[in-house]
């Protein structure tokens, strides 16, 4: 049993991503969508904490949202994987429940 968490807020603007990560369990997945994709950026004050969480939780960004915002996938923290909408759907199906951190 595992959960897909979605986060659609910038971690520089709100606490949603941090709160999500603080409640995610080993084996869960966190998908960052919309303004949430900024959470996948490397070279920020959050990078270290994200890498730490990434050891237990699978981290994803929605690639179309990343591209919309002009961010090259090369900027992503190591271990953060890009998925498209079909990949989003697969993640929903694969995990037992989806929880949105609004």
């Amino acid at each position: 049993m595992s959960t897909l968490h979605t986060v659609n807020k910038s971690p520089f603007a709100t606490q949603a991503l941090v709160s999500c990560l603080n409640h995610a369990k080993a084996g869960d997945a966190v998908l960052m969508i919309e303004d949430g994709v900024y959470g996948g950026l490397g070279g920020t004050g959050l990078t270290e904490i994200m890498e730490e969480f990434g050891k237990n939780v699978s981290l994803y960004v929605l690639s179309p949202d990343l591209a919309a915002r002009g961010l090259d996938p090369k900027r992503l923290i190591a271990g953060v994987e890009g998925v498209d909408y079909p990949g989003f759907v697969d993640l929903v199906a694969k995990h037992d429940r989806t929880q949105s951190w609004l």
Partner: protein
Amino acid sequence: MKIGVLVSEGPYTHQAVDSAYKFVTAAIAAGHEVPRVFFYHDGVNVATRLSVPPQDERNIQQNWTALAKEHNVDLVVCIAAAQRRGMLDANEAERQGKDANNIAEGFRISGLGQLIEMGIQTDRLVTFGD
């Protein structure tokens, strides 16, 4: 798999309803069933047929109406949230003594029970909001 979708924000202001549309389209293309999309909070504003977006932008309401028709998706607008925000169909307008209505084809107004029922009857529930 049956996937239910909850949309909690209004059109154009938040990306939520655009993400939901893309997600539902992809889910159906992948062979899943999306029996219902429930519009709550400002999400009810998606259902207006009176919007006139700029010509070079997407028409959110028309996209949903077309999707619902093509794939038999039940688009439910929460009646309590809709009343607060001025979203009415012809029946509701008459019942409330209002001189106009604004709900587009393909959307129907109903109660919050439809949201709970969606949670019970689907395998997954995905929320798009703010």
